[in-house]
């Protein structure tokens, strides 16, 4: 048990230290944790992603808190969110002091030049995985069939040409469609 506390701290410290590119960038890490340990199942992880999006606060922080809770209850939630934040507090406050130097340093620029495509690829990897699981495979036991999922994704995709980037709009529309589809099926 003690080991699990340490491992949990370590894993989320890693996420805080190595995630670049905002909330969904920590998804590859969470899937990795899911594959490595028996802390939560893939299905629980998809629930966790959905809930984190529709509760207040930054998604990345919500996902970490939730994952910690799934693993070790309230203590787990505390450990995972603190572990996530510590590396940011150390690095970001130091960077603030060196602000000007930091943004013009050529090593930093060169590292970012390589890191940015890496982040893109990692995030796209998760997108592909989600698309495969939810649309093509439909192995999650939601009461809907694949072509509905495909339709909804395409519909939201078309909406991106019209709407702003505010994520909550897409979640609300998609959630409403999900509920509608479910009731249509029941009727």
């Amino acid at each position, binding site marked *: 048990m003690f080991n699990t506390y340490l491992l949990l701290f370590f894993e989320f410290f890693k996420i805080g*230290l190595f995630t670049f590119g905002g909330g969904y960038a920590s998804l590859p890490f969470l899937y990795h944790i899911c594959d490595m340990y028996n802390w939560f199942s893939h299905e629980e992880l998809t*629930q966790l992603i959905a809930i984190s999006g529709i509760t207040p606060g930054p998604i990345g922080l919500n996902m970490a808190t939730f994952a910690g809770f799934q693993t070790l209850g309230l203590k787990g939630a505390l450990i995972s969110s603190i572990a996530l*934040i510590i590396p940011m507090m150390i690095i970001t406050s130091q960077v603030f002091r060196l602000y000007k130097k930091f943004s013009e340093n050529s090593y930093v620029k*060169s590292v970012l*030049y390589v*890191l940015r495509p890496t982040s893109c690829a990692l995030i796209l990897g998760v997108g592909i995985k989600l698309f495969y699981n939810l649309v093509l495979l439909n192995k999650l036991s939601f009461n809907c069939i694949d072509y509905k999922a495909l339709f909804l994704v395409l519909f939201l995709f078309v909406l991106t040409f019209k709407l702003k980037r505010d994520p909550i709009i897409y979640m609300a529309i*998609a959630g409403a469609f999900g509920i509608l589809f479910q009731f249509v099926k029941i009727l």
Partner: protein
Amino acid sequence: MEKINSFNIFKAFFKIGLILLGGGYVIIPIMKQELLEKRHWLEDDEVCDYYCVSQCLPGIIAVNMSILVGYKLRKFKGMLAAVFGMGLSPFVSIVIVANLLSKIMSISFIDGLFWGVNLSVIVLIYLTLKEMWLKSIVDIFSFFWFMLILLLTVFKVSPVVLILVSIALGLFLEKVKRIKNV
């Protein structure tokens, strides 16, 4: 103008954490409204500067921004107040939701809701990528590197390894460039 002390910083960020929904870029208008227009703690371009810096740093953008603002206002104490304020309402709401998870999962329309929201994540990931793409894939090398990492993620290589290798390569490339220039 509200007095700048740890408690007021905590209060301001508590509100930001409470009304921030969905994460990501939404933080900019919220911070502008709460810290700039209401409290005049920041200059206009500071919010955007902090956003850009936060994007380049590891971690969560909104949390990094609150660290930057808190540190700017009251150094270490301000940073703690800002992060604690920002984190409090997400923490409480997640713990409540997680505790009620079995009840929530038994609501009749919850399957449909989650199904839809999860599908929307695919599109949100697309939007995130679209935002990052132009800044990230700037030449043939970065495209090649992108494809290589994508291939490696399929084989379940740990993201930490991929990021560490990327950092090492970035340092190496700059080192080579400097040696050549000498």
